[in-house]
């Protein structure tokens, strides 16, 4: 049976921006169904579906929800992580700009499941358009009794608020996000306690990615078995958005069963840019280790990629062709991590900068093989022993650069080839 797109079914249906138009396509039926179930049954359904978080870590969604204490005097919160700042990632923006009610529906279902009356959608500050679309949709949802004191005529109350960030990658890390939501610098917290117990404003909180909450909507509508029937195996289930960018003919957001092999994904994007050869690709955003052309048949799911020493992460697939200097690519990412480290932990603060400096020396032609050895020595010390996973993330691209392209880099260093000649993307002469 052909794969049916569900997460992106409305992206070319502008009618879906209103409650009325969204309902015509079956919208808010999932919420109605959820409200007829007991909250525990909703959690059970999500657990059974095998849904793993789409924000990066792949944590089982139903299990996370079940950690929220049932009996507590404190309010509980749903926080939707719409910070989307992982380089290469743009899928959540599409979901919010083109189908805001799909997300709102997921938020309310999550709220019902864990007993939370408030959702904050923490959206990165640069997404002004998505924030405006969401605000409008939320207003419409209140007007139609979808939000407010009586959700769809039930006795359940739910409010959704959009909260804008202000430009800091680390606010995508869930506890950095909570600090930011509370009006502070976005510096990650010591864990435990985990947010499910002590989260926003000291209260039990579920933090889920935009796409995760959108998946929940479809699980409630079509059932856990339908969701489980899609994907590689029991641990890698459901439809998945892949954000493909770089040297491909048609970059964009593509919905496939999770676990689609890279080559098939690439073919669906019209292949390599100008028919060039593939050199390397990053399968899961800037934090994921690079893979090479030899690994083009890799299934893009959580476990296959973890086994290969990389990760699915945010499923942002960045494709690099034969003209790419991989050192230069890794340098750009190292610069990103050095800029975004929040500075609380010494290995991360210092290590990300060291990686940047050494890569710059190599790339610019001032380096030697000893620099590559130094880099290999620095990388393992950048992550692991710090408060959050940013340090680990920063290791990904550099570690793989050394492992997969080490010999090539040594060769280039010995032959004094750096900086490699740049292939301009635009012919500047023609426009000057």
């Amino acid at each position, binding site marked *: 049976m052909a794969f049916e797109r569900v997460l992106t079914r409305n992206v070319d249906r502008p009618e879906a921006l209103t409650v009325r138009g969204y309902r015509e396509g079956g919208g808010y039926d999932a919420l109605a169904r959820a409200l007829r179930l007991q909250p525990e049954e909703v959690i059970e359904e999500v657990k059974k579906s095998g849904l793993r978080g789409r924000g990066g870590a792949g944590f089982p969604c139903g299990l996370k929800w079940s950690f929220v204490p049932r009996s507590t005097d404190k309010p509980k919160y749903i926080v939707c992580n719409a910070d989307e700042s992982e380089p290469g990632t*743009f899928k959540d*923006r599409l979901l919010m700009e083109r189908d805001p009610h799909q997300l709102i529906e997921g938020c309310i279902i999550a709220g019902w499941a864990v007993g939370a009356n408030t959702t904050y959608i923490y959206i990165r500050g640069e997404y002004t358009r998505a924030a405006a679309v969401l605000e409008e949709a939320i207003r419409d949802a209140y007007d139609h009794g979808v939000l407010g004191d009586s959700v769809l005529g039930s006795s359940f109350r739910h409010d959704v608020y959009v909260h804008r960030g202000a430009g800091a990658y680390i606010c995508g890390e869930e506890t950095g996000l909570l600090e930011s939501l509370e009006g502070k610098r976005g510096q990650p917290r010591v864990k435990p306690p985990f947010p499910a117990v002590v989260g926003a404003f000291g209260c039990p909180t579920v933090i889920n990615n935009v796409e995760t909450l959108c998946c929940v909507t479809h699980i409630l509508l079509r059932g856990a078995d339908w969701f489980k029937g899609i994907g590689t195996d029991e641990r890698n289930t459901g439809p998945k958005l892949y*954000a493909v960018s770089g040297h491909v003919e048609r970059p964009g957001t593509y919905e496939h069963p999770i676990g689609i092999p890279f080559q098939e994904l690439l073919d669906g994007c019209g292949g390599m840019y100008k028919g060039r050869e593939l050199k390397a690709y990053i399968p899961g955003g800037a934090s994921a280790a690079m893979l090479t052309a030899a690994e083009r048949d890799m299934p893009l799911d959580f476990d296959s990629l973890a086994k290969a020493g990389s990760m699915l992460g945010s499923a942002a697939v960045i494709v690099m062709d034969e003209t790419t200097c991989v050192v230069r690519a890794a340098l750009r990412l190292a610069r990103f991590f050095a800029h975004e480290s929040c500075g609380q932990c010494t290995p991360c603060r210092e290590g990300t900068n060291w990686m940047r400096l050494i890569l710059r020396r190599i790339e610019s032609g001032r380096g030697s093989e000893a620099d590559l050895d130094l880099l290999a020595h620095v990388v393992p010390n950048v992550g692991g022993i710090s408060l959050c996973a940013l340090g680990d993330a920063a290791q990904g691209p550099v570690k793989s650069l050394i492992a997969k392209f080490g010999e090539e880099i040594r060769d280039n260093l010995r032959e004094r080839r750096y900086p490699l000649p740049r292939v301009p993307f635009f012919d500047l002469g023609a426009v000057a």
Partner: protein
Amino acid sequence: MSVERSAFLPREVVERIDALRSRYPTEEALLLPALHLAQNHCGGWLPEEAIEAVAELLHLPAAKVAGVVSFYDMFHEHPVGRHRIRLCTNLSCQLRGAEELLQQLHDQLGVDEGEVTSDGRCSFVQFECLGSCDTAPMAMIDDDYHENLTPARLRRIVEELD
């Protein structure tokens, strides 16, 4: 209400901040929304008086507010151009020509990153991924995304800023 504060942040800004109070259990949580509103009012940056005004309004130490301002890339402690250009140079944009756009911006504006043109019209910075990599290379100018840029298109867009 102190005279300085109301003079610095006009009533409608204060009212818009106050209207958000019921959304959060703490006053401190209003800080980011308040800073966004204040910065919009001040022409894209936050002079010390604005920081003090927000601090007073939310009953927070001004040093704390300043610490928050300095943490986030979208808040500016120094004057910026009337139009703010954020050119994404992260990997996906780099692969599709962002460096040539950077060169073009330098040539066209004749200032360095972070500086304001002498007529006060523009300032530009390199920015991290803006979540628009499928339409790379791209730039955010004020609140709008400009996608699938070429040096010629970017030049024209910048020329046409008032």
